[in-house]
């Protein structure tokens, strides 16, 4: 995405300004709804209702339609995600090479579950993805943009411990 490298805006107004900039760049074309929502999500890290309502107004679309699209695609989040989004691949290759025990270990480590995906301190989110296309390295997990291959439960937990230690530093 062309704005992918732009740092996430910090203040509420800066985020909102980013949304209007995104809308303008896409000519407020309702057909661009998916990329618009993708970019808006980068600014907010999720899709707040009010922002979806604003996008709907700006694109002259029914809010139900925007909500329908936002809930159809797996990438859109209706709740804030953690600072570190861990995507564990559960594609076929990873599955037959035991990705689920890694998931179980990570969830146990962070006190998360199928229903609870983000830690209370908004630090970690754990998701599964159907395939990262790095099957040769199965099992694979993604921490934000970084790919980590040939994982097992203990290396995965160690990775999380490493992040925690780094975050604990002042």
């Amino acid at each position: 995405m062309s704005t992918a490298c732009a740092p996430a805006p910090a203040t509420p107004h800066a985020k909102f300004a980013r949304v209007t900039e995104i809308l303008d760049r896409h000519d407020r074309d309702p057909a661009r709804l998916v990329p618009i929502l993708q970019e808006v999500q980068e600014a907010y890290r999720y899709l707040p209702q009010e922002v979806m309502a604003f996008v709907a107004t700006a694109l002259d679309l029914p809010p139900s339609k925007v909500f329908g699209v936002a809930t159809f695609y797996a990438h859109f989040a209706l709740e804030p995600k953690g600072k570190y989004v861990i995507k564990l691949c559960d594609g076929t290759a990873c599955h037959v090479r035991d990705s689920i025990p890694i998931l179980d270990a990570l969830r146990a480590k962070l006190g998360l579950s199928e229903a609870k995906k983000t830690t209370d301190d908004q630090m970690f989110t754990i998701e599964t993805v159907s395939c990262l296309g790095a099957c040769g390295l199965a099992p694979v997990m993604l921490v934000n943009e970084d790919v980590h291959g040939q994982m097992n439960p203990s290396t995965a937990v160690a990775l999380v411990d490493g992040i925690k230690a780094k975050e604990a530093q002042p």
Partner: protein
Amino acid sequence: MSTAATARYEIDSAAADYDAALSRTTRRVVICAGTGCLSAGALKVRDAFRHHIETAGLPIIVELRAEDHHKGIHVGTSGCQGFCQQGPLVTILPDNILYCKVTVEDVPEIVISTLVGGNPVERLQYQAADGGRCRGQAEIPFYAQQQRIVLQQCGVIDPESIDAYCHTGGYRQARRAWRELGDKELCDLVTASGLRGRGGGGFPTGRKWEACRIQQGERKFIICNADEGDPGAFMNRSVMEGNPHSVIEGMMIAAKAIGATEGWVYLRAEYPLAVKRVRRAVADAERAGLLGPDVFGTGRSFTIQVMEGAGAFVCGEETALIASIEGHRGMPRPKPPFPAQKGLWGLPTTINNVETLAMVPLILGMGVEAFRSRGTKGSPGTKTFALTGHVVNTGLIEVPFGATLRQIVFDIGGGVLMDGKVCGEEAFKAVQIGGPSGGCLTKEHLDLPLDYDSLRGVGAMVGSGGMVVMNTKTCMIDVARFFMTFTKAESCGKCVPCREGTRQMLAMLDQIVEGKADESVMARLAEVGQTVQIASLCGLGKTAPSPVLSTLRLFKDEYLAHVVDKRCPARKCKALTPPTIDAHLCRGCMACLKVCPVGAIHGEKKQPHVIDAEKCIKCGACITTCKLKAVA
């Protein structure tokens, strides 16, 4: 890009300049920068090479540019070379030495031994099954047994250089198509080649083009379907990462053939590197004037836009993909009308898979006869497969249609992997081919020549090319349940058979693995499976039951073991697997032995106990009783 500033990009002079630049390299260090190698630290290895070459006082070329004149060692990156588990991969040219699993620490030694001394570092070379070291790709069975056509340049050329692509003969066929060949001629040529869609269905590409070509309309579209969603498949990712311009050239040829004015690449967002490379390639091709208002001086326009998917497997289906580009929920609609008649924005549209499009310039280059000389009569050419699972060599492979499973699993794949050991046929249980739309092949199919028609004949399909090898310790009901979990989660929810059928099939499989089903469940599974197969709206729905129906047919005994004997032969299904006692933890206190209601536990006091799996009824009493957690 060397000619960015000049008015018009010339393919031939760009290629010549690139050639001149290449000829000044004394050696080339090519580091694989596919997703796999990158995650293993390929860029750090590249930087280490640059650093150590400079430290060693050797002349270095960072960028291949025509205007430079000095000689030196070029350090560059390539796309995915397919052998991901051995990454980061480093190739030294022209010596043709391949190093595997190279770390930053290995780099000084390579620089001294190979770049300065011209000698290979043996310990970093691939070790063959007999223990011998392999020098380059040609000696490694994984590569030697393949026929890499569409993948030939992947892992060789710099995917971020349009000049490098032109140097391999790139964009010549697009130029020929636009300048010299008629639209019908192109469709006929592709029809004559027998090229079939590489994305799954295997529909003849030429006929698909022709259907769109004959439609009236000023505005038509060619869409590259790069929404590779099958779990366990990454062929398209590798092509886009390794040779993105080949996809663009394919789209340009298709555009000429069908009369398209605009192109779209609908690309899976889970592939950030592929997204980056394709965007870069499109931008470079635009800047070069290859894409734009005046393609090859014909006065006709063709442009390409890239759109990222947002996480929906169903968008790999043509009409759902179109809905997604148009800003809707990606739900398929009934066909007819077909996209060739009413596609994007209701206008004539052709949708081709990445690999299909990348194959097109190659077919034009080699000619129909050469293409048809590979593969089988009904399925000419080669096909890429993602070879994964319990196999020694995992990675991306390309073989001609008609190759057998035995060749793929044992010759290229190096055999079955079980408990970390290389095993032979005795450990082979099945190959799942075609992903969530496909089925299983077993030992009896090991010598079946694989092509579109033979696979369909045995209830499987080529699909996009995921090939997952499974050893005898794999539970096939667990595999079926894995795919059903996937299709249920990815069903768009529109049509009743797929939405309700996948949900019920999963519920039935859940019951089976939990030991709560009786024999009647198998008939119900088959009945619902057939309903979903026949009555679903789209192709993905129609094939969603395949993994279940295929395992029901091929592994009936395993299902019966689960539902009648309440036993999982592979010991994967927890509820159906008798507990075992860890001899290291057991102190022989006899507590579990006493509590077992059927007397299935034996052992002397203070000696580790053993559970008799045949007698055990899996009540779990021993597990809760054991204070040492030795029973599990």
